[in-house]
């Protein structure tokens, strides 16, 4: 965890290359996570509603409570680690926007998981909130990674 204590990461060539590679692969992960969820649940709101809540007319079974909770449990763990690591790199960038940027990403991910549970147990309207916040936190985290990559590529 040297990168959490080193002041200017760009001065260390190995560390800089390591973090650029890490950030690039995490960008790929975020893109694949969206692709994976799209393939699993569908690409339109009505497809997602059918996959999550079921549809009697089309004989689609709803998502079971246990499998939904297992999905949230795993995705939440990944989100925690991912945002924490992205945050550790993003911390070095000298901009006043870094705190709101990170707060928005974390809050959107919390909203995404919370509204997913609410969509299953409270109301169908939470499906749209969950999908929107899911995409939003992925885009926000990707932006943080892109900014970090550009910052790492710039000479100190």
């Amino acid at each position, binding site marked *: 965890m040297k990168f959490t204590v080193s002041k200017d990461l760009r001065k260390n060539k190995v560390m800089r290359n390591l973090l650029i590679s890490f950030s690039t692969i995490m960008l790929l992960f975020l893109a694949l996570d969206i692709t994976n969820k799209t393939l699993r649940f569908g690409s339109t709101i009505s497809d997602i509603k059918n996959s999550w809540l079921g549809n009697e007319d089309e004989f689609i079974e709803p998502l079971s*409570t246990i499998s939904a909770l297992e999905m*949230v*449990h795993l995705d939440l763990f990944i989100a*925690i680690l991912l945002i924490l690591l992205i945050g550790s790199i993003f*911390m070095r960038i000298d901009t006043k926007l870094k*705190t709101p940027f*990170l*707060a928005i990403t*974390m809050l959107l991910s919390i909203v995404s998981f919370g509204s997913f549970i609410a969509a299953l147990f409270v109301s169908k309207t939470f499906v749209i909130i969950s999908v929107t916040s899911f995409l939003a936190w992925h885009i926000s985290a990707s932006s943080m990674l892109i900014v970090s990559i550009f910052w790492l590529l710039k000479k100190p």
Partner: protein
Amino acid sequence: MIDSYQKTVITLFSIMLIALLATSIALFIMKIGVEPVDIAQYYMGNEETFIVKKSFEGLFETTAPHLFAITIIIFIVIHLLLFTNYKKYVPHLLAGLLISFIVDMASGYFLIANLTLFAIIKWVSFLIFQALFIIAIFLLISDIMRHKTI
């Protein structure tokens, strides 16, 4: 003194951890149950209620990712606590968390070997782990809230 960025990261990280903890408790209750009898039935099976006995491979599939994930989470939380005024509690908290976690994980294997006593041990160790984890997060949040931001 900590900056607003660090305060935001640690506060929201703690909130996400509480959510993670809530899902693990919910999963435990829904999949296994709330009492030691339910734990014994879940692992050892019950012909009357058509519950199949858990296999070694099945248990191992759960243990392996949890060993990695929980150890990482404990490491992050404990290492953050080392920078707070509560660092004197860290050795006890760490020992308690690790022991209860290992006992909780190992109990499943003893249960499939028909050692019923481990249903109670698993139940107690699960409760101790969750309680200690909540205490660790609470200490982290309370320390962060006391600091003035720069």
